[in-house]
């Protein structure tokens, strides 16, 4: 790969042909072209080996270590560890080395295992058999031996081994059907076309005799784009050139269907296939919690450094007198004495850093990662988010953003397929002002065979009859629907049983299927496409045949598609259907006004409308159009653009035929979901490409706009009348006035904004020409901020992302969520803080690029209100608690320095230092952060407003952080001075030790530390117990288990002379401490005092100003509820409240 890149660069400078530098030439069957045709450059391409693994056996350790230490946290701990190794530090390197080693090893094992799985998967793919045509024979070889230029034979239901140019098929028409389920999730069959000149080759001998080269662009990841050209050399003739497009390129990973076998030539292999190129990882999104966590970390790092600096300075001030520095009983070694004082001070500073480094624990990162990773399983496990129809539940593509789901302030949703079903049903059509409604409208897909037309305005004149015929033919011809004639169809059935019960219509656009089906109900049945002839069964049961000459495909910019057909009578006809806005400007005659009125009326009802027009082409016009199209299609560079230009030239001077209306029903519970989101304080924006009236109707239906909502319009229609500037200011005034009047009643103050794409781009345009009028962007944002719902219609995909970006970067920096189902939503999904894909009918593009994928829009409610809420409170507690417990842990250590001559003497034993964060206090908080439910799921669902309680990162704001830190410091002071006064109290003229009834033994510094440590472990664990609202058996097990483990460990640790240790300082310390009555009494006392302030704060806050969450907690009966009775209870309690 690197080599080809290099070659590319070289050829760029040597060849000098600018147009060709970005293309490659493939010699089919590795045959050189005839001499003189073109210089034969032997090219090197990678083999067809797919390497998804990151590591090899040799580079695993260095590469993995490098990757891991690139993380700042790991690097920090590595530095601490190295400092401990190099200088004489208070704690042994084991204390930080062991946890680091553990973390690194676990991660390495995990990554290694994953990589091994990838290796295995790679291997099985690379070794799967492939049929290659060599010397006129089919040879079976392994997939990874495939080279660019090899001719491959693929049989039905086989997967393409690399990206191939389709040469010929077993089907006579040179087509094949392919599903790309494993590529983009679309289960529909797509038709691919063989190169016309080679499609006649039926045997391997013929195929092998082919002498041709393919010039195509260098590999690029876009699955739907391919530009290339094939030059076919026949004996001593000029080479024949054909353009190649995406319809000729069979992608690796797709599967051949309904075709016995095909021949194709490899153009991209191995890591250069489009599938492989698509596995590049997306950019990382970071959650707000992570950002707060990093901010807190910086604070703690500052605390850490200042602690170390303070202690170092004090140390040197204190030991100014040599008697303190080196009393006779405590001399330095010669080496130390000779060291320069600056070096000594620096070493001391580092030693203090090492001593206090536990304030930023390694285990926090591990625990947070584990919490996110394990916690995300609850989303995938959720039965309520499982869709029976689709057979799939929610998917988590990244677990980094779990808690962000609880912070969403803006939801940007697509309309079609997201709010609505994207299950189209033909409702009516209007031909030249007359309305036709299919007789039997049925919700289901099966319809009676009877089909007649119900004419509402029945005055069919002669020319009308003609229009009618043309209209129905247009709809039957102008589409890309395929007919599936088999009983069993993979994927979702889109066809209807009628006449021939075994035929289905398949298309990537549900609108088209709906239209063709609608036509069937109106009596015109599209039968099939055979040998480039489209066959229609008309009303009189006669088969009409039209030769399909050109298809001008649909794209979202043009918003229309056309076909050019030749009727039996030799007439050239161009039919076009598309959005009204793109058709009307190109219409020269027809009943434009009537149709327009009708279209608008339909749109208000929430129907999707399409206009149909036609144009008769003369022979010369056709030739001209043909010329334009072929020229554009042959272009290697900018083909898209040239095609668009060609389409623009050809698609004009239409005669308007009529319009169709298709209904797209709202998704189940869409309105309920939107209402809940509104109550949760989330602003919902609908971004759609649909026209304003349709979209507005959907918004009303989905309760995005209510009857009481005052609609503000910011559309092209309005800006035509007034200048954009005036409209913006007027709206702004309206909003602000309303707000000042009804400051109290929230309900009256309900604005909805409608804006269209054209106006939006005007608003967003950099305002150099309106420099005097200030920034429209700000005014627009100000208006939006005051609107509970915003509808943006006529949006291009990129505009959707722009809107998201605009809101994201506004001054409050709100958290945004984008939800969509189609490829046009991908940009928006990638842009938003959280991207959610709906596993919809428009393929899996959105779901693949999203952070989370859900089957239906309604699942968003549970996703945000329940899962998001839980994840947020869990992680917030996790982060705060971790900082708290480490303040408690390290601050006594800091205080102790004042009593040990700033000598960096650790307070706790090495084992305690090491295990505190790893085993004594890690599991309770991890399990808490996995299973805590401060409010039940049902309450959260019933009362969406609880979501407001956690809005704006409320649990991780600075005051809360300060509270936790102060609590930590308070507890630490209690621990330390509690123990201090018990051990040494000269003012009370007490003795210097604790004694027991039967012994009167002395307690040393390790007992002192152990006493503090015991109080510490119990206090922080019980503090968590106080915070736990949801005591499942897991919590009980883990909390009490941890405490028990601490006691057992301490007994064991002190109970044996450990042979591998060079010190035995903990020997019997813990037992001796426990055998002393006052130690027990003081442990109990200190724990009580430490927990007291938090209990009081909790109780007072709840009593005096309870939050909504706390109120919701109190209303629930305080007893164990079995899962089965929850529903009953919640019902009864809701009944009680009325």
């Amino acid at each position, binding site marked *: 790969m690197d080599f080809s890149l290099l070659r590319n660069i070289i050829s760029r400078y040597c060849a000098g042909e600018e147009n060709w530098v970005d293309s490659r030439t493939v010699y089919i069957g590795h045959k050189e072209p005839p001499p003189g045709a073109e210089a034969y450059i032997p090219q090197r391409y990678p083999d067809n080996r797919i390497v998804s693994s990151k590591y090899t056996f040799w580079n695993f350790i260095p590469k993995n270590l490098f990757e891991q230490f690139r993380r700042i946290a790991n690097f920090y701990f590595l530095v601490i560890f190295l400092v401990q190794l190099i200088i004489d530090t208070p704690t042994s390197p084991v204390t930080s080395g062991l946890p680091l080693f553990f973390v690194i090893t676990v991660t390495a094992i995990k990554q290694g295992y994953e990589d091994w799985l990838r290796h295995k998967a790679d291997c099985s793919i690379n070794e799967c058999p492939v049929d290659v045509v060599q010397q006129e024979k089919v040879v079976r070889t392994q997939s990874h031996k495939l080279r660019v230029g090899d001719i491959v034979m693929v049989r039905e239901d086989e997967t393409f081994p690399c990206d191939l140019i389709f040469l010929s098929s077993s089907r006579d028409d040179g087509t094949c059907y392919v599903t790309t389920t494993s590529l983009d999730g679309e289960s529909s069959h797509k038709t691919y076309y063989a190169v016309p000149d080679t499609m006649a080759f039926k045997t391997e001998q013929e195929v092998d005799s082919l002498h041709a080269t393919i010039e195509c662009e260098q590999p690029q990841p876009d699955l739907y784009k391919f530009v290339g050209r094939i030059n076919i050399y026949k004996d001593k003739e000029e080479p024949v050139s054909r353009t190649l497009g995406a319809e000729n390129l069979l992608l690796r990973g797709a599967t051949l269907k309904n075709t016995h076998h095909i021949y194709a030539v490899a153009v991209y292999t191995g890591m250069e296939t489009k599938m492989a190129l698509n596995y590049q990882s997306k950019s990382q999104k970071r959650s707000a919690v992570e950002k707060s966590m990093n901010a807190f970390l910086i604070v703690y790092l500052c605390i850490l450094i200042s602690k170390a600096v303070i202690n170092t300075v004090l140390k040197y001030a204190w030991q100014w007198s040599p008697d303190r520095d080196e009393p006779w009983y405590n001399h330095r070694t010669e080496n130390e004495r000779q060291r320069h004082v600056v070096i000594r001070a620096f070493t001391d500073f580092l030693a203090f850093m090492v001593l206090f480094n536990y304030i930023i624990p390694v285990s926090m990162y591990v625990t947070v990662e584990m919490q996110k990773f394990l916690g995300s399983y609850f989303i995938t496990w959720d039965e309520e988010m499982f869709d029976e129809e689709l057979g799939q539940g929610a998917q988590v593509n990244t677990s980094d953003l779990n808690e962000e789901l609880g912070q969403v302030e803006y939801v940007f949703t697509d309309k079609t397929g997201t709010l609505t079903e994207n299950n189209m049903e033909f409702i009516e059509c209007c031909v030249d002002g007359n309305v036709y409604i299919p007789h039997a409208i049925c919700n289901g897909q099966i319809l009676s065979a009877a089909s007649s037309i119900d004419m509402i305005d029945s005055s069919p004149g002669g020319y009308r009859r003609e229009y009618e015929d043309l209209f129905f033919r247009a709809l039957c011809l102008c589409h890309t629907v395929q007919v599936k004639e088999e009983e069993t169809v993979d994927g979702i059935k889109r066809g209807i049983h009628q006449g021939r019960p075994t035929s289905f219509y398949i298309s990537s656009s549900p609108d088209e299927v709906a239209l063709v089906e609608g036509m069937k109900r109106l009596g015109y049945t599209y039968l099939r496409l055979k040998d480039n002839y489209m066959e229609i069964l008309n009303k009189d049961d006669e088969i009409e045949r039209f030769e399909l000459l050109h298809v001008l495909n649909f794209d979202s910019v043009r918003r229309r598609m056309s076909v050019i057909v030749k009727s039996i009578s030799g007439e050239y006809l161009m039919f076009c259907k598309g959005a009204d806005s793109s058709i009307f400007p190109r219409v020269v005659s027809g009943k434009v006004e009537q149709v327009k009125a009708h279209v608008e009326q339909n749109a208000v009802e929430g129907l999707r409308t399409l206009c149909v027009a036609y144009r008769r082409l003369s022979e010369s016009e056709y030739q001209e159009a043909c010329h334009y199209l072929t020229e554009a299609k042959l272009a290697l560079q900018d083909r898209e653009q040239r095609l668009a230009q060609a389409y623009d030239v050809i698609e004009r001077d239409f005669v308007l035929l009529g319009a169709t209306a298709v209904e797209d029903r709202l998704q189940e519970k869409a309105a309920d979901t939107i209402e809940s989101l509104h109550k949760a304080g989330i602003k919902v924006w609908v971004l759609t490409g649909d026209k304003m009236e349709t979209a507005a109707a959907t918004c009303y239906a989905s309760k995005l706009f209510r009857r009481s909502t005052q609609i503000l319009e910011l559309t092209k229609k309005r800006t035509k009348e007034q200048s954009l500037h005036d409209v913006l200011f007027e709206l702004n005034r309206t909003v602000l006035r309303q707000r000042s009047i009804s400051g109290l009643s929230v309900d009256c103050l309900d604005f909805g904004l409608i804006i269209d794409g054209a106006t939006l781009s005007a608003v967003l345009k950099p305002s150099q020409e309106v420099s005097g009028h200030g920034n429209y962007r700000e005014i627009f944002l100000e208006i939006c901020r005051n609107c509970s719902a915003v509808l943006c219609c006529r949006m291009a995909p990129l505009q959707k992302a722009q809107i998201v970006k605009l809101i994201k970067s506004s001054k409050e920096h709100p958290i945004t969520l984008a939800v969509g189902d189609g490829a046009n939503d991908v940009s928006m999904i990638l842009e938003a803080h959280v991207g959610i894909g709906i596993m919809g009918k428009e393929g899996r593009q959105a779901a693949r690029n999203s952070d989370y994928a859900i089957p239906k829009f309604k699942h968003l409610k549970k996703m945000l209100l329940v899962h998001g809420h839980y994840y947020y409170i869990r992680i917030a507690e996790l982060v705060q608690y971790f900082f708290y417990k480490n303040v408690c842990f390290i601050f006594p250590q800091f205080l102790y320095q004042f009593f*040990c001559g700033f000598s960096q003497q650790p307070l706790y034993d090495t084992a305690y230092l090491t295990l505190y964060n790893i085993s004594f206090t890690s599991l309770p908080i991890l399990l808490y952060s996995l299973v805590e439910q401060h409010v039940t799921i049902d309450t959260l669902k019933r009362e969406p407003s609880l979501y407001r309680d956690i809005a704006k990162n409320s649990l991780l704001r600075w005051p809360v952080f300060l509270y936790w830190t102060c609590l930590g410091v308070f507890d630490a002071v209690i621990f330390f001075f509690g123990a201090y006064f018990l051990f040494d109290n000269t003012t009370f003229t007490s003795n210097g030790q604790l004694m027991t009834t039967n012994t009167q033994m002395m307690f040393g510094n390790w007992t002192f530390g152990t006493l503090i440590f015991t109080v510490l472990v119990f206090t922080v664990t019980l503090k968590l117990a106080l915070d736990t609202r949801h005591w499942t058996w897991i919590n009980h097990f883990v909390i009490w288990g941890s405490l028990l483990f601490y006691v057992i460990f301490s007994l064991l640790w002190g109970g044996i002379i450990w042979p591998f240790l060079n010190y035995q300082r903990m020997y019997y310390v813990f037992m*001796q401490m426990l055998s002393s009555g006052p130690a027990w009494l003081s442990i109990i006392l200190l724990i009580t005092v430490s927990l007291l302030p938090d209990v009081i704060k909790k109780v007072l806050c709840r009593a005096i100003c309870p939050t909504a969450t706390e109120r919701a907690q109190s209303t629930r009966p305080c007893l164990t509820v079995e899962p089965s009775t929850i529903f009953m209870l919640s019902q009864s309690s809701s009944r009680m409240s009325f």
Partner: protein
Amino acid sequence: MMASSYNAKEEDGHHSGSSTHGGTGAPKNKKPDNTAFKQQRLPAWQPILTAGTVLPAFFIIGLMFIPIGIGLYVTSNNIKEYEVDYTGVEPNSPCYDCANSFTWNSTTPCVCTVNFTLTQPFESNVYMYYGLSNFYQNHRRYVKSRDDSQLNGVQSSLISPSKECEPYRTNPETKQPIAPCGAIANSLFNDTLELYYSQPDGNTSKVTLVKKGIAWYTDKHVKFRNPGNDKDNLTERFKGTAKPVNWMKPVYELDPSDPENNGFINEDFIVWMRTAALPTFRKLYRIIQKKPDSTPTLASGKYFLKITYNYPVRSFDGRKRMILSTISWMGGKNPFLGIAYITVGSICFFLGVVLLIIHHKYDTRSNSADIPN
């Protein structure tokens, strides 16, 4: 780092999808299990900390802590304690000369005597402590300057002590390993204290001081062990080692009278080796056993303390004290614990009352607010 597994999973999925022929179009039905854990519906106890629920706890804590505190305080007050500072800082103090004339290599011990009077008799066992202040036994360099395996009688450590003992590891002149090595051992407290009672009749009697039973049992019997074979002479067993530089006699002569209290298992030595937590500390020196008859262990009256002054503390502004104390079930004299208990108990009780008021006031309010809903 964990999140990457999702990507891996996805890739794997695709790869396997492309390698299995056919059937990829049919979505796999992977309906999640309906278990209480996976659906987050585990039965749970859901306590809420409200004024109502916390109230009883506060009262109970208050009612329990106050009596305990009073008990502790009374017990602590009943403990008798007497302290004598014999550092010799003031010119008129008896040990002034000894303190001033101190040199490391003096051969004749300096002896001084301090007189004191016990106004009350000390009943039961009396414990005699020495106390040092401003002595940083908890200094890091000091704390780690020991070799536990040498003290445990490991022969190899006896010959080559741990590096942690530097600069008290080997004798600078003879280069012999020091036993016991390290700063802690080197600075062993070596004042000798003797207590005499001036009987009312004018005679003086020496108070019997018991020097055994002052160290932890486990230290004496497990952690500290003399090296070599028990049958050999202790001097033999320490052959080839040097005495700590500041010691006057080698380790095997710490208590020649009692082989069970000699060498590393000398109890004074073991007590010293347990480093104190704070710079001002006291360590148990001797025990005065209570007498079999009902006479007090230490009757009230005049006493004098005879000190063999060996231990210099003036250089670092230290103080030396001798303390006599009785003990109770809760240890030595320490009113702090009792006072703390009483204070915390009272605070809890007081808070209980406050919470009761708050509970009464706000609960009715929130109840009345709930009714319109």
